[in-house]
């Protein structure tokens, strides 16, 4: 797999405040790469730096293994923060400006507008657009030069559920064409539904990176319910090998354990110790919990 983007020791300081700290990342062709982190974790700053609008304090990055960034700009389609266009110009005129900057064929404008479903509104002024339409127009603008890579900063931010769904389907259909997509979001659900790989940021530091499966694997959680007290369950299960956490939430006990531990084994141990389970199920570990765990620690 060829590398699309390599980030080395990228750092951004605002005075004493470190927005991004020594970030190392590699993104390969064909990945849908999620940059995940709470607000203020340095996602937008990182994307701003790799897009050339924010000057890094130190470190470097290279697109397509080329040392010269200026020549690759036009192969990268991007949205940074909210959609930005000239408010008094129509959608078509705005895209014409972008198309001329990217030096691509003006015929592409109608194609991308059709793709995001805005062709019928192409002569309306940008300021009359709803937020969902603005986001889709921004995506259209990013697609203008048919780039190999898309950088999307919070593409579903502020959209209603229908808008989120539309946007997600659009992004997935673009990914199907084999393009590399970098998405930042603070919505874990979003990343989990769309991405193949993820990097988790916290206060500018890279906490974890890898494929979604790799981050989620190696760990599972059982949920169980019994008439026995939580303390009793805890004392019994704590002695077992491979148990990582035990906690009580409302009337369910959550038992985190390593991958090799089987439900049958857990049930047997409990029964042998006089605990009769009325409920035992594999809890679907979501990225959200994993993320919250990582961020908390």
């Amino acid at each position, binding site marked *: 797999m060829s590398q699309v983007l390599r980030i080395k020791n990228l750092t951004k300081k605002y005075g004493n405040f470190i927005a991004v700290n020594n970030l190392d990342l590699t993104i390969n062709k064909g990945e849908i790469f999620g940059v995940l982190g709470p607000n203020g974790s340095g996602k937008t700053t990182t994307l701003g730096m790799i897009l050339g609008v924010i000057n890094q304090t130190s470190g470097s990055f290279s697109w397509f293994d080329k040392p010269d960034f200026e020549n690759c700009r036009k192969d990268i389609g991007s949205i940074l923060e909210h959609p930005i266009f*000239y408010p008094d110009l129509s959608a078509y005129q705005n895209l014409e400006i972008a198309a*001329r900057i990217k030096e691509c064929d003006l015929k592409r404008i109608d194609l991308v507008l059709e793709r995001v479903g805005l062709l019928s509104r192409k002569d309306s002024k940008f300021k009359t657009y709803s937020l969902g339409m603005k986001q889709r127009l921004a995506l259209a603008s990013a697609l203008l030069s048919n780039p190999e890579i898309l950088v999307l900063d919070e593409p579903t931010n502020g959209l209603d559920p229908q808008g989120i769904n539309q946007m997600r389907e659009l992004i997935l259909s673009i990914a199907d064409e084999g393009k590399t997509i970098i998405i930042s979001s603070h919505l874990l659900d979003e990343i989990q539904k769309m991405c193949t790989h993820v990097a988790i940021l916290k206060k500018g530091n890279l906490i974890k990176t890898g494929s979604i499966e790799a981050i989620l694997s190696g760990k599972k959680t059982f949920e169980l319910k019994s008439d026995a007290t939580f303390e009793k369950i805890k004392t019994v299960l704590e002695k077992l090998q491979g148990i990582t956490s035990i906690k009580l939430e409302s009337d369910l006990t959550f038992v985190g354990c390593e991958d090799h531990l089987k439900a049958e084994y857990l049930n047997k141990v409990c029964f042998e110790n006089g605990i009769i389970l009325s409920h035992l199920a594999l809890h679907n570990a979501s990225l959200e919990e994993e993320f919250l765990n990582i961020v908390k620690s």
Partner: protein
Amino acid sequence: MKKFLQIEYLKIKGNNSFKVFSLIFIVFLPLIVIFLPSVFKVNLMGTDTYPLMPTSASGSWYFTTYIASWFSLFILSFIIIFHITNEYSAKTVRQNIIDGYSKTDFLKSKIFMVLFMAIVAAIYVFLVGVVASLYFKSHQSEPMSLEMLKQFGVTELPVNQLFGGVFDGVLFSLAYFLQILAYFILAVMVSMFLRKGALSVITYFSLFLLELIFVGQLNNNGMEKITSYFPLRSFSSLLPNFDWSLLISGIQAGGKLTILNAVVSVLYMIVFVLVTKFIFFKRDVI
């Protein structure tokens, strides 16, 4: 260069204040240049005199470009300041760069735009100058009779010929071009430094006032030789104010463009562009 101008044109298309301000310049410049001298009269000892009436070809060219220079200082510089600060308030600077402009490209697009606008404005002023000089020639009104002027110690009437002198026209239009370009580049620098419209306009004018005060102080200490090379003073002396004490015999040509003045102005423009570039590259594009 064509690409940059095309893109700037597309941006301007949706900008109504740009259209309004340009229209004001296009309509009011010829109106003021042609009608003000014949309307503005002073009754001197029972005789109507027209102190603003140009009496020579160079006077006519000087008057046209001088009036136009007030337009470039106010209205046309506004256009530039708001065109650029709007890019910051709408964050489109950043979008342009994300879309594929380099920072150099963005700066180039603005410099090419002001260069183009300065050329167009100078050509328009030249055309207005041709019409105005033909009009003043046909008007042939003498500001005063020789008898009257004798009382003020003037022994001959100002030369009332040579209207339409093309060489003078080119020279004054060139001075006008240099001056408007200089004002524009100053406007670009101020707007890209401050990034806010109203603040930039206020600062732009404050700079003129501050320099005036500063120069006045230095001049009082006998430092005229230095102060005449100050940037804004150099720009405005491309088309200097007329000498009110000489107005009695109609508008005479003010100081013509000198090579020294042109060179000093161009050097300042280069410095301003480099400063703008330095600021723009040093900062994050927000």
